[in-house]
Structures are given as structure tokens and as C-alpha cells.
């Protein structure tokens, strides 16, 4: 019984849950050939109560689809970090864009729906497992 519980505890705390410590360099399609892709909304990240985030969040509309770009970001690592578009600074109503790909660099997250950015006005880096906000950017 103790062995069983111990094995589970170890499995639950592995680094599988952490974000890769790496710098990505993802670019919008056509960004290297066209200079007229402009952000629809943007904001700079600030630290949340449980982590540190620097860099910018920008919303692009390319070929009829919104994309959230995290540009030149540096994010303190943590378990189960997700990228949200949220109506509130502390997320209650949000769109989960998936797990944070890496703790640094330039990253792109496809937004499957067409959200109203007057409602979803924050980009968040959020630790889902512990409900801890690492950082936020108000999109304007």
C-alpha cells in the first residue's frame, strides 16, 4: 500500500509536467516576405503573483484566423503552464490555447474560434494545476 502510494507520488511530480526550458523562434507564415502584417491587439506582460513573465503578447489576423504571438518572452518555469485568452485578469472565463511550448523566445498559438477581444482582453500565462497566475498582458 505504501509502495503503491509512493510510486504514484513520484509519478505525479515528474518534470513531465514542467515547460521545456528553451527559446523558440516561431514566425507567422509569410512574416519573412511581407512587412504589412500588423498586430490587431497587443500588450506587454507583467508579473503575476506566482511567477515572472516579460515580453509582449500580440494578436494577428492571418488568412481569416487569429493567432496569439508571444514575442521575445522570458517566463519563469512552473508546472502545467498554459496560455489563456481570458475575460478576467484572474481567469474564470477563458479560452485555453494549450500548454506553454517553452519558457522563452517567440511562440505562436492558433486561436481556433473568433473571440471578441473586447471581452477576451487578457493574455495569461497560468499554472492550471495549482490555479496560479504567472503573468498577464492586457490586449489593446
Amino acid at each position, binding site marked *: *500500500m505504501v509502495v503503491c502510494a509512493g510510486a504514484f507520488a513520484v509519478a505525479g511530480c515528474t518534470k513531465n509536467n514542467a515547460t521545456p526550458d528553451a527559446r523558440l523562434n516561431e514566425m507567422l507564415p509569410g512574416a519573412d516576405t511581407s512587412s504589412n502584417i500588423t498586430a490587431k491587439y497587443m500588450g506587454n506582460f507583467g508579473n503575476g503573483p506566482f511567477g515572472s513573465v516579460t515580453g509582449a503578447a500580440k494578436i494577428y489576423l492571418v488568412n481569416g484566423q487569429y493567432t496569439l504571438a508571444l514575442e521575445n518572452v522570458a517566463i519563469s518555469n512552473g508546472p502545467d503552464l498554459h496560455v489563456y485568452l481570458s475575460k478576467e485578469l484572474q481567469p474564470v472565463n*477563458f479560452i485555453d490555447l494549450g500548454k506553454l511550448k517553452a519558457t522563452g523566445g517567440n511562440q505562436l498559438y492558433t486561436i481556433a474560434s473568433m473571440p471578441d477581444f473586447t471581452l477576451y482582453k487578457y493574455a495569461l500565462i497560468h499554472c492550471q*494545476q495549482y490555479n496560479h497566475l504567472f503573468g498577464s498582458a492586457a490586449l489593446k
Partner: protein
Amino acid sequence: MAASAQQSPLPHINQFADGAGTIGSSEGSVAASYVHNWRLGKKRKWEAGLGLRYTGYFGTKKDFRTAPGRLARSTTTPFIIVFAGQKTENWDTLTVQRPFINSVNLSVNFGYNFNSKWSGGFNIDLIGFSFGRKSSAVLTSNGITRTEPAASTPAFNVLLTGDNDYGSLNSEFFLKYKLNDRWGIRAIYQFYFAEYTTSTVKQTAPDGTIVNRFRNKANTYGAGIAYHF
């Protein structure tokens, strides 16, 4: 030779304390129980009785589905509900980030003694109470995600068969091998109904019902050790 051929029947009473642990996909449990069984029949092969069981269930990022039987299944008729069709169109998902439930329940136990060493059986919790850690959760409803900051486990458990059940209830199928007169070991398949309720965000079912009960049916496997009195 004659003595071994004519074995004495098993005692009328089978009392034991048992500890068990099981593990599944991102979830597990520990259990401790006391069982008092009466052996039945001329050869006392069958046994049945009552027990008291503590179960601790824990996991990481587990999905709990809409719990009320009326919404989850096509019928709520007791026992029939176990085999009834699933109304998945009514299901929403509450992903509980760090579920941890302690439940203490009265259990009913059934067993069959194949011989003096080997036996098998089934047990299931009937009624009791639960307590546990509050956990943040994410309710996904029609593609919309909302944060529940403090999902909690309901305090009361009762077996009403299938999705009619309330609360958190343990059940096991097991095979036991007696090492000697006192000690036995078990191989266990466990089916655990775990329930969490939300307080801030709630599901609105297609018929307008407001739902705050969500259930995870955990399938886990494990082992146990029993001490016979």
C-alpha cells in the same frame, strides 16, 4: 492420510483487517478496512458480511463527468441503470487538478472459498461520509472553459446503484491467497466512484437543469494484505 482427506470445515466467522493500495492512470488509492463475514452453507464455502472501510483516493488532472443519473443515463431505474445507455450529449467535463478524497463507508462483502488457501470475492461500499482537499478545476462546457477555484467532495455517500449513487464509493473484485492462519494477500481490481461538486461555476444542462455534481469512475489495480483474527 485419513486426517488430510477429511479436512475440518472452515470456521463460522471470518474476521480480518485489510490494507490495500491500487494504482491507475494518473490516480490511485489506499484503503484500510475491517470485515466481519459469516460463512454460509454446509461446507462453509460461501461467506457474506459487513465491514467498515476507509479509502483515500488521489490523482492529478482527472476528468469528472456530469453525475446526476437522470442526465447521465437513459433510465434511473435501480440496477437497470448500470446497463442503461449513456446520454453523452448531457455530459460536461470538470477537470479536477488535484483530487484527494477520504471516504469512510460501511461495506458489504461477499466471498467464496475455493479451498483452505484460495478465495475470491466482491465488496462494495453502502453508505458513509467523505472529506478531502478542495481543488481548483476547469469546467469545459460546450467548448467554453471556466475556472472553478475550489471544487470540493460532497460529505455524504450512499449506494443507489450505478449513476444514481451519491458521493464517493469503493468496490473491489479480489482474489486472496492465505499464507498461513493469520496472513493473506490479495490481488485487486478496484472500481471507485469519486465525486466532486462545484460552488462557483455550474453546468446548465440542455433541459435547463443546473448541475454542480461531477463523477469520475476510477478503474485501478493493486494488492492488499489481510490479517485474520
